[in-house]
């Protein structure tokens, strides 16, 4: 997994910038995702993570720079466009329909059918069986395919989205804050899926504001701050504490600690 020879990138971003009117959302971002590699994109709120994912997933278009898929320069017009090139994005809470069953969610939008003309119908048996197999590969035994997704845990719901993306041929998986709404245990579950996706040869872009979630699974860490790239480290080139520090803007954190200490001391002095 942490190969010494750099594998060729599935998705590459070169000097990408994005402007919203006179606001610079992203400036000169470069990044590469190789198969079997997890690239963690870290950043605080407002760092430009969302704009970045939206460019990669086809929701927005970049204003400057290049996006390359397996070496070809591309410009995604829609999320569908991106998906067709093998870039699948799992949006945090906008990925599944809670009242629909697991298998219906799994195949939603790409339902397998049998029969012709007016008798064309969903191949329910195939859909249920495939969903079960794919979920099993992620380590989840779906006890009842007709169970609504809403009754699954948060982590399991992320797993449905991930398994679906993998099944439909995603080469690059973009996970948008998959752990932010989850508890500690569930976050661990999702991190396991991230590792599983990597081991199946996918390139994963894992967007998070939590360095403690990024550190155990990442092969590469990229920090965004105020729309700019603050650094790009391979695993081993940076340790956890340093990552945390870098992410929260090192000096700023020291400053904050200092200020807080002063404030806490102040009342006693009075």
């Amino acid at each position, binding site marked *: 997994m942490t190969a010494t020879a750099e594998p060729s990138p599935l998705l590459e971003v070169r000097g990408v910038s994005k402007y919203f009117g006179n606001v610079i959302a992203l400036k000169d971002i470069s990044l590469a995702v190789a198969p079997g590699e997890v690239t963690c994109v870290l950043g605080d709120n407002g760092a430009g993570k969302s704009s970045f994912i939206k460019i990669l997933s086809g929701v927005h278009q970049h204003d400057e720079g290049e996006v390359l898929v397996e070496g070809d320069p591309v410009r995604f017009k829609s*999320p*569908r466009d991106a*998906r067709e090139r093998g870039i699948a*994005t799992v*949006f945090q809470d*906008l*990925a*599944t*329909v*809670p*009242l*629909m*069953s*697991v*298998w*219906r969610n799994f*195949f*939603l*939008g*790409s*339902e397998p*059918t049998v029969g012709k003309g007016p008798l*064309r*119908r*969903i191949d*329910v048996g195939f859909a249920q069986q495939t969903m079960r197999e794919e979920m*099993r590969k992620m*380590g*989840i*035994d779906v*006890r*009842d*395919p*007709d*169970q*609504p997704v*809403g*009754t*699954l*845990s*948060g*982590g*399991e719901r992320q797993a449905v989205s991930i398994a*679906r993306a993998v099944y439909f041929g995603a080469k690059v998986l973009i996970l948008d804050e998959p752990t932010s709404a989850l*508890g500690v*245990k*569930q976050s*661990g*579950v999702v991190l*396991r899926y991230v590792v599983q996706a990597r081991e199946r040869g996918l390139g994963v872009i894992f967007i998070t504001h939590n360095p403690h979630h990024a550190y155990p699974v990442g092969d590469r860490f990229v920090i965004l701050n105020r729309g700019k790239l603050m650094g790009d480290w391979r695993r081993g080139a940076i340790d956890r504490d340093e990552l945390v520090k870098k992410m929260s803007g090192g000096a700023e954190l020291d400053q904050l600690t200092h200020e807080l200490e002063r404030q806490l001391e102040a009342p006693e002095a009075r």
Partner: protein
Amino acid sequence: MMDAGRGSPGTAAAPAGAAPAGAAPAPEPVADERLANIGLGARLMRRPEVGSLLGALVICAFFWVTTEAFGTLSGIANWTDVASTLGIMAVAVALLMIGGEFDLSAGVMTGTTGLLMGLLTTEWGLSMWPAIALTFGFAAAVGFVNGYIVVKTKLPSFIVTLATFFVLQGINLGVTKAITGTVRVSGLGAVPGYDSAANLLSSTFSSYNFRISVIWWIAITALATWVLARTRFGNWIFAVGGDANASRNVGVPVARVKVALFMTTSTCAALVGIMIALRLSSVQAGQGIGEEFTYIIAAVVGGCLLTGGYGSAIGASLGALIVGMAFIGIQFSGWNTDWRFLFLGVILLLAVLVNNLVRHRAEGARR
């Protein structure tokens, strides 16, 4: 009579007594001890139409026992007749509601289409079948406009179709008065092609006068059930009503599905409007007004959530059956028929309470 199709998608509540899902990270597939919990009872209870089935049985039994006429074949012909036209609309409205939208113009539309067909034939000299074809075309166009406005403006369909409702109500009265000088269009029986059209759409069969509309009702319920449970389009109906954003993200054509549903509703309204016009061989300008709420009540009684994404066609049909049985049952009991509104209010409230419970169970263990 209507359990023809197996139902809508998995819409289950968590099997009673299942381990809370959030507590089980389950990284390795284990032979699952929770599997045993999904018995036949639980499977039945998770279906959206269970409540309406029980309700229908209770009401049927009540009037069957308390009145003499209710259980006779001609009595049955009577209440299935009321339920049939109501049921056709309830099914269409249920599909639309599952898709997350309302159509308040559905009731008045039955009047508009009946009047249009009447005017086309009696005033403008068309024979029956071309008039019927034009009427369907007109209805589909109105449905398209409803849907298009809702999808484009993202305004609540409640408001958009309320506007359509009043526009059509005004047109119905205004145009009818302007052309015929009265508030009705009559004389359809003399139009060429009336007999064949009436035969297909408004005749009766057997000596107890069962209406042909009952057959249409059952057929449409079966078709809608099949569409919901087994076709891609059906899957998309649940999806756009359940979460339009998530659906869009996975490539479901949300706008097209919604517009198609509005068109289905208005086309069904045309079918019912034509049926009623043919049956009476005349149309009142006020036909259908107020009915839209009865359709929605039937759909809700049948398990459709007001918030969309959940419901069934069979349920909506059972809801219509309940309303039909109650209307006729009240009449047979010799009570004042005005009491039926009280009845509608009560079953609506009961149904919404039950549905709320179902929804909480289905969405339950979110963590």
